[in-house]
């Protein structure tokens, strides 16, 4: 199964629905099992799992909906997460560990620790975030 031809064929796209806590985590779980099948290293899979889970939850919790795309290019896993608004007012605050704008209701479920974006950045070899009132876009690369 450890075949680079298989890896480079991977091109995935998922739409994420706002507020859908029941299905939350399915996209990242699906991505994990596909990467496992093509023989990606476990340490790399863990990073991808954390990045895609946090990105997925951010879209579910904070946005009006969006999508996650993942592809393998050479020795890089490239992840694009895009959502439709309302955007992040202050990106540097959002990048600070412990800062969160999540509601009390969501926090009671254990979300909104203010660790999502910091976790994503920590697991990424390349990380870029852009946000406006139109929406937020993340570009992440993880090398293996």
């Amino acid at each position, binding site marked *: 199964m450890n075949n680079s031809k298989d890896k480079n064929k991977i091109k995935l796209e998922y739409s994420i629905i706002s507020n859908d*806590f*029941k299905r*939350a*985590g*399915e996209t*990242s*779980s699906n991505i*994990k099992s596909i990467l496992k099948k093509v023989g990606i290293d*476990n340490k790399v899979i*863990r990073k991808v*799992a*954390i990045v895609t*889970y*946090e990105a997925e*939850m951010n879209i579910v919790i904070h946005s009006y909906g969006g999508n996650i795309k993942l592809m393998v290019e050479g020795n890089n896993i490239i992840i694009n997460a895009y959502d439709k608004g309302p955007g992040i007012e202050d990106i540097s605050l959002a990048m600070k560990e412990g800062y969160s704008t999540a509601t009390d209701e969501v926090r009671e*479920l*254990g*979300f909104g*620790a*203010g*660790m*999502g974006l910091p*976790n994503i950045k*920590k697991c990424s070899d390349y990380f870029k975030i852009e946000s406006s009132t139109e929406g937020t876009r993340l570009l992440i690369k993880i090398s293996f």
Partner: protein
Amino acid sequence: MMKISQIIKELDLELISGEKGLDNETNGVYSGDLLSVVMASAKEKQIWLTVQTHINIVAIASLIDISAILIVEGMEVEEDTIEKSNELGIPIIRTNKTTYEISIELYKLGIN
């Protein structure tokens, strides 16, 4: 390494779901209720102690290869959480004890 089934027996824990994963092995424990912190810090094959009971805990456990979820303080586990745990074969077990109390027992059992 110790099997989840053996830990359940030794510490008289209640198995709620995820029987398929009873042969999972563990040699460590992680405790936490803030999901992003758990994601970042818990390690594969650990038992995860938490008071969270909603369906997302199973997704997290599966993503980072947790061996079993141990619900503390006798919290009620939601039906869709149970279904997901059965589907993925990740055991959910429960105790009425606090995190601290059950941690000591796990430690005495040799899980450290």
